[in-house]
């Protein structure tokens, strides 16, 4: 009796288990291929340091995106612009306006959270289409960032301030470890707290959640607030690491964030948006892009690579989601 029941369950586990870590295999394969093709440039400690060092901004954007993706709010297009605005605000307030850099940071985070609140209010309580709100917000914020910076790169933040992002712990910068901690806390909340399960249920079905007594709208609004907070903190750290910010680059972060979040559904918890999977995907993507840049020596590959990966990742996500019997994009 037990045997007849457990054996199909076991096969199913194995079937889902096999692709669970396939991305890590592909990652290893990428490293081998690049290592063979470009042994001089690729196989150096500095390369790997670059990969692990440079992804702080992307990591915080992915975290911001996950705040809304896990609760089923697809395509928050404003995150990159929101992060950019935060980075720009810190730079402008501290460098041009001579504010205390900590006060400037606080102000930047507060503005980003407020942006999240406006998004949430319009989408959740105003019931306005997510794409329209966040696309409009994205363009609006980019415009504001260009305005306050007078369309130019602002640099000259206090080098001491850079330590909050770059201070080296175990050979890696502080921003890497912030990412690890944030991913860890996010994962813990999702897996082990009532709030996490509520987030999953809201992501699966508003109606089911509402009837189970979950405060659906409060959770959705909170998701947008949290996304704003991650954008704000990410922006401050980005500005600190770079010593300033260029208002024109924030848009380039958007697509990689989506690619990583969707690619993350292929790892660890197949078919579900999950922080650890997305975290792995961030480094997978940066390995891929760095290797390609070394091979081709030019910048166009970034667009081709991120765009291509996003489509493949969403295809995988949809496929895995369908197999898990849940609704997906």
């Amino acid at each position, binding site marked *: 009796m037990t045997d007849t029941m457990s054996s*199909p369950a076991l096969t199913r586990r194995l079937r889902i288990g096999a692709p669970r870590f396939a991305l890590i295999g592909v990652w290893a394969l990428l490293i081998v291929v690049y290592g063979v093709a470009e042994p001089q440039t690729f196989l150096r400690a500095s390369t790997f340091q670059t990969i692990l060092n440079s992804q702080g901004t992307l990591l915080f954007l992915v975290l911001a995106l996950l705040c809304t993706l896990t609760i089923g709010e697809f395509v928050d297009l404003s995150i990159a612009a929101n992060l950019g605005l935060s980075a720009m605000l810190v730079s402008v307030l501290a460098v041009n306006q001579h504010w205390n850099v900590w006060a400037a940071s606080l102000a930047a985070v507060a503005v980003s959270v407020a942006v999240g609140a406006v998004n949430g209010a319009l989408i959740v309580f105003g019931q306005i289409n997510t794409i329209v709100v966040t696309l409009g917000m994205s363009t609006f914020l980019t415009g504001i960032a260009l305005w306050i910076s007078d369309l130019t790169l602002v640099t000259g933040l206090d080098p001491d301030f850079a330590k909050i992002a770059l201070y080296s712990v175990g050979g890696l910068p502080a921003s890497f470890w912030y990412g690890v901690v944030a991913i860890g806390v996010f994962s813990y909340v999702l897996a082990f*707290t009532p709030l996490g*399960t509520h987030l999953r249920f809201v992501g699966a*079905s508003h*109606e089911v959640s509402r009837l*189970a*007594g979950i405060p659906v709208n409060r959770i959705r609004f909170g998701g947008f607030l949290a996304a704003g907070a991650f954008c704000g903190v990410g922006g401050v750290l980005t500005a600190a690491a770079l010593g300033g910010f260029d208002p024109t680059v924030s848009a380039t972060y958007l697509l990689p964030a989506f690619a990583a979040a969707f690619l993350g559904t292929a790892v660890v918890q197949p078919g579900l948006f999950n922080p650890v999977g997305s975290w792995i995907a961030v480094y997978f993507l940066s390995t891929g892009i760095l290797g390609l840049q070394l091979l081709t020596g030019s910048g166009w590959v970034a667009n081709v690579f991120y765009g291509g990966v996003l489509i493949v990742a969403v295809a995988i996500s949809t496929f895995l989601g369908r197999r*898990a019997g*849940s609704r997906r994009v």
Partner: protein
Amino acid sequence: MVPEPRLRALNVSKSYGPFRALRGVDLQVAPGELHALVGQNGSGKSTLIKILTGYHAPDAGSRMLIDEAEVALPISAAERRRHGLSVVHQSLGLVESRTVTENLRLGRLEATRFGRRVRWSAERQAAAAVLARLGSAVRPTALVGDLSAEDRATVAIGRALQDHRPGRGLIVFDESTRALTRDALTRFYAQLRRVMADGASVLMISHRLEEVLDHADRVSVLRDGELVLAGAGTGDTSEAELTRAMLGRSISVARQQGDAGNPPDSATAVRVRDLEGVDLEIRRGEIVGVTGLVGSGYERIPYLLAGTAAVRSGTLTIGARTFALPETSPVALMKAGVALIPEDRVQQGLALGLSVRQNITVPRLTAVGRAWWTGTAWQTAEVDEFVGALDIRPPDPEVPVGSLSGGNQQKVLLAKWLAGRPELLLLHEPTQAVDVGARQDIVAALRRLAATGSALLVAASDPQELAILCDRVLVIRDGRIAVELTGEIDQDDIVDATFAREFDPSASRRSS
């Protein structure tokens, strides 16, 4: 001479996995006749319609002939149009924000040779011609959303009719008349007869026996996927005979066991006052059924009491606490011990992508778990208890609910709310579309809950289910309790009280 039949369905079967929705149905519809097909929910009516519309492919060995010409199955849209086979669905399939002309002509719009513009003047004329044939005064330029239920039905019929050629064709109505009032119904059938005068046939799926007896020529009955009565003349049969055919053998057997020991406690557990006109009480340990025709309002009662549907008036008393329903949130009622098991498992009941365990324990996460640690022991205990008690298969709490069969999903939905030991459990169609074995497990679990002193209210359309489950059944008509059945409940009585003399309580002509 017997004319060759318009439609001949031979040995039509349809299986979903091991479940056989239709078993070798042979159905004949004669030219120019209005043929009614009746049966309970789950008898296979809708499956048959879906085969006629080409939505489902029937099992091998099924055949279909129209005007004695063999039709390839699954039937294609082109073939349906060629044979003049059209279907008017339950929802009528109209777009409310568009005009009558657009709705009528959609899919047939003709464009100019050059420029590919739609010639709306010609389309309006075509629409007007169709409406004129139906004797309808509906303006082709009116928005469908502005029309009465009757006029919408007319537009839907009109659409079904426009490919119709005189002397041929079959129009299938899938419970499309349910929105019509009695007067509208008379005009509707008069209109239909005008259309049929040149030889078209109609197959009318319905559940209103009186309507069928009044207006159809012949009637067939489906029960559990089999045609148990084939083409009886409506003059030779009665509501009582049709009811018996729909229900089959009387099943008042399964009810008894484990029941005699638990007479309902005398204390009133739940008191409902002026719930949009309904007053009722449920004693501790009592299972009360509410039923009625579609549209009578019985199916709203669980949602009104749970606070999930907008309610105009009413109070609910549980124990010592009284709630004014229009001002009370679903969460407050839930905390007071009210649980709702909705009919729509997929949209409202379960998150199919999440696990059995997550689905069962989610309502109690904040109450039992701590904010920073949900806890696993209580979840495991709860899930194990109910997976065992309800015999949920596979007994693996970590598989996604979506991978379970319908019956097992329903059990998970039940476990989700039974585990909270509600004071008042509200259910809507708790055993709809589940197999016999699962139904027994579910009934047993509900009886066990009642035995602990909970009050249960079941809204259901299946008289057999109500007879097996309930201590008392209230039949709702026009939002009011019309009949109360107590004591030994016989499903025939429920059917009688529900279906018979629907429109006019004094007309007892056909009730036995």
